[in-house]
């Protein structure tokens, strides 16, 4: 799928993708883009389901969820310069919103989820569970709740110009606090075990392999849609403005923009993507728990994007998929060696190849990030 993409994303720059769209050179780029997405769609929708076993396809569904988070990270971090070390918070909000609905749907009208009966600590549904009985509320909540939380955090933080390392540490602390809060409220959140053991997904039994395949298709489709959306953001005037804010926030302010607002949009959108990813992760993998959203998973989300290419949409998505795949296949057989390898690769790429592995392509083909389009 790489060969057909037009995105390049230099290390810190925007590459040529932001300058396409004017003049004749853009037409070729647009065809390549269409070709790239068509190839990706064929791979995801036809080839993968045909050649992969049910088990492998479910694993791929999980990786695609991580890729969605990485796409959001490439927007907020790669283009916006906000080192979001706490995407687990939003992934978790989306995941728990979905999981709560599935639990309630499994239990049936008026009934309590099984784990609450098991712990026996409560005989009434907590008020904040109640709205999630409605599938419409749940579907809206999986992205609206993370986006609302991100909007509040972002507003408070960016308005006061908390940025750089301060922002990174704060976002990480928020993810950690959320995980700890979930563990602490075992009676209503399932605690360390999280929420698991789902029977159905909006009326479809999850033990039926056909339905699980459908979940995979939903995830693949969502990922492609999110990538197209993000690509549009990258190419838009907003995308250029975001890069400007990343590189010199003060200068943008003197041009009459409020950088806090510019950053807020990217942060909120990236939170929505992470929330959606978390929500789709739940039916695909069958669990959401604090261990999946704390400090370590939050940085894991970032590793893929960093290795693949933080400022490149395709780089980030492919990086996330590749790292997650390697994690599952290699860490089972060589847990220690895998840790060293992953950490080592991460260190080397971040330190010496900040554009990620996708920027190697540019180095190899000696392509300069000069624009393609001629001015009119």
């Amino acid at each position, binding site marked *: 799928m790489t060969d057909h993409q037009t995105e390049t994303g230099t290390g810190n720059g925007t590459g040529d993708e932001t300058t396409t*769209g004017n003049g004749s050179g853009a037409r070729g780029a647009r065809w390549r883009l269409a070709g790239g997405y068509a190839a990706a769609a064929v791979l995801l929708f036809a080839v993968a389901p045909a050649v992969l076993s049910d088990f492998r396809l479910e694993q791929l569904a999980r990786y695609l969820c991580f890729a969605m988070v990485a796409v959001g990270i490439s927007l907020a971090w790669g283009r916006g310069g906000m080192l979001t070390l706490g995407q687990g918070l939003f992934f978790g909000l989306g995941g728990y919103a979905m999981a709560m609905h599935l639990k309630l749907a499994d239990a049936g009208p008026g009934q309590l989820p099984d784990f609450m009966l098991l712990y026996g600590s409560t005989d009434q549904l907590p008020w904040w569970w109640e709205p999630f009985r409605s599938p419409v509320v749940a579907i809206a909540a999986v992205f609206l709740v993370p986006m609302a939380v991100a909007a509040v955090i972002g507003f408070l933080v960016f308005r006061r110009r908390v940025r750089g390392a301060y922002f990174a540490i704060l976002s990480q602390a928020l993810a950690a606090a959320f995980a700890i809060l979930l563990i602490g409220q075992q009676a209503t959140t399932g605690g360390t075990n999280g929420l698991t053991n789902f029977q159905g997904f909006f009326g479809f039994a999850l033990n039926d392999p056909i339905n699980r395949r459908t979940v995979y298709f939903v995830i693949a489709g969502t990922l492609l849609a999110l990538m197209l959306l993000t690509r549009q*953001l990258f190419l838009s005037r907003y995308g*250029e403005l975001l890069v*400007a804010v990343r590189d010199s926030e003060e200068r943008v302010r003197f041009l*009459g923009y409020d950088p806090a607002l510019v950053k807020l949009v990217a942060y909120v959108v990236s939170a929505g993507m992470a929330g959606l990813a978390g929500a789709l992760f739940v039916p695909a993998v069958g669990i959401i728990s604090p261990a999946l959203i704390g400090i370590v998973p939050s940085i894991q989300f970032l590793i893929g994007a960093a290795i693949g290419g933080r400022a490149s949409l395709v780089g980030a998505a492919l990086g996330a998929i590749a790292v997650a795949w390697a994690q599952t296949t290699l860490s089972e057989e060589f847990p220690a060696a895998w840790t060293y390898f992953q950490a080592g690769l991460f260190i080397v790429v971040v330190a010496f190849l900040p554009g990620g592995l996708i920027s190697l392509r540019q180095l190899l083909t000696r392509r300069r*990030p*000069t624009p393609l389009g001629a*001015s009119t």
Partner: protein
Amino acid sequence: MTEEALHGLTISELRVSFDGFTAVDGVDLRVGPGDLRFLIGPNGAGKTTLVDAVTGLARATGSVRFGGRELLGRPVHRIARLGIGRTFQTATVFENLTVVQNLDIAAGAGRRPLTLLRQRRSVPPEVDEALTTVGLAPHAHRLAGTLSHGQKQWLEIGMLLVQNVELLLLDEPVAGMSHEERDATGALLRTVASERTVVVIEHDMEFMRAFASSVTVLHAGRVLSEGSPAEVRADPRVQEVYLGHAPERPTAAAHVGEEP
């Protein structure tokens, strides 16, 4: 933009202090509409701090009015939207964006969200015009980071042009430029100043003499002298400051004392 639409800048009792050190100490300053005012003074006189206060970067007391509006207390981006633009001592452009992208961003502070979310299909006319004015048309699609120092300064001025500012505050626009670049910048300034009110901080006295229509001399956070370049040059207090307190700047002193 017509002469009537121009506004003047009125600064009164402006005071800025950092941790007990008073950088600007009760400055009163009027810059008339359409003026090309040079702000000179030895290092530490408070020139840049004054510009910082006007543009909202430094917190200050007193009053700064532009076109009947009080500027003090407004956030930086709101002041910018009132039509006040500035450059910095070191050229600050968006190095990872092309020249056109830099200018397009500068032109777009008033754009609606929907416009922002769309792709730029062509070069907006005002950007095209600015490209020609600052002479960067041949480099329109180069990354700004690859421009020379002088070209970056011109790009910054171009950004102010498309930003459609009424008051331009330039902090040492010719510092570190070659002779040819300096002459080009001077000509550019003249073009720009014909339709705008301009304040220039400058050390280069030759440059000042060639282009200033009026001059204010700052010293130790206060206004020392004000008038036409000739009047200021003749002021004994100005000569005192430059000769007596800043021997490390003999060229500046020589230029101030020099007869045309």
